[in-house]
């Protein structure tokens, strides 16, 4: 017997699950931005190379979706704490959800449809990328 039907239970449960996932995802994101790629080399072709592998696309998409829903959920729970805001709950919720929906749509549109033109990658080939390619080939 489960009472997930009681309003709020799912949101509460989801907040904990998504939060735990996000901790892992953001940790990986920090590692990849600062160690694997480096902040100073976040050029177009680095992204292109990174998103060549579906793994990174899925990772980023997950982070986007979980992060936005977790965030929107959290903001909603903050808003619910204020009686004055709750009078206009419907508008506020629409506003928050619209923002996160738009962000998710834009973000996933970028992640899904991003396909670098071969030429542009070649055009912006940087020495750093080469170095990394070499180190990759050593393995």
């Amino acid at each position, binding site marked *: 017997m489960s009472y997930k039907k009681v309003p709020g239970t799912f949101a509460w449960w989801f907040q*904990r699950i998504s939060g735990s996932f996000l901790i892992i995802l953001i940790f990986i994101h920090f590692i990849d931005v600062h160690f694997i790629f480096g902040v100073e080399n976040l050029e177009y072709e680095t992204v292109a190379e990174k998103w060549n592998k579906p793994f990174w696309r899925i990772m980023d998409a997950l982070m986007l979706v979980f992060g*936005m829903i977790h965030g929107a959920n959290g903001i909603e729970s*903050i808003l619910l704490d204020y009686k004055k805001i709750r009078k206009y709950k419907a508008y506020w919720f629409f506003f928050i959800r619209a923002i996160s929906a738009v962000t998710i749509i834009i973000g996933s549109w970028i992640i899904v449809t991003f396909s670098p033109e071969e030429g542009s990658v070649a055009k912006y080939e940087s020495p750093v990328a080469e170095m990394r390619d070499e180190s990759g080939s050593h393995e």
Partner: protein
Amino acid sequence: MRYSIKEGMLSWLLHRLTGIGIFIFLIIHVMGAIYLKIGPEEWNHHVELFNTPFFRVAEVGLMGAILWHGLNGLRIIIIDFSGIRTSHFAKFLFWIIVFLTILLMLPGTYILLKPLFEGVAG
């Protein structure tokens, strides 16, 4: 007369503030990614921003916020699901995560600010 702010209330206030901050950053971050669709040059111009000293320092703040929010989130999950008597345990966990946040901030700050010092040195 004000209610005095103890460990639990402080962690809750910080959790809210960092949560709101991270949410806003995330929106801006995703919107920035639109440059990827606009074109390589625009994107590269955009990411140069990440290398400015101001952004580096701001990123230390972001890292602190994310660390606090994440660790405090874990603390809340532990309190909710462990079934251990909360009063002292919650405070103990609070100081644990204060310690962990500072501990993880040290290497993180070093990594984030290293290029700055290299830039100064260079």
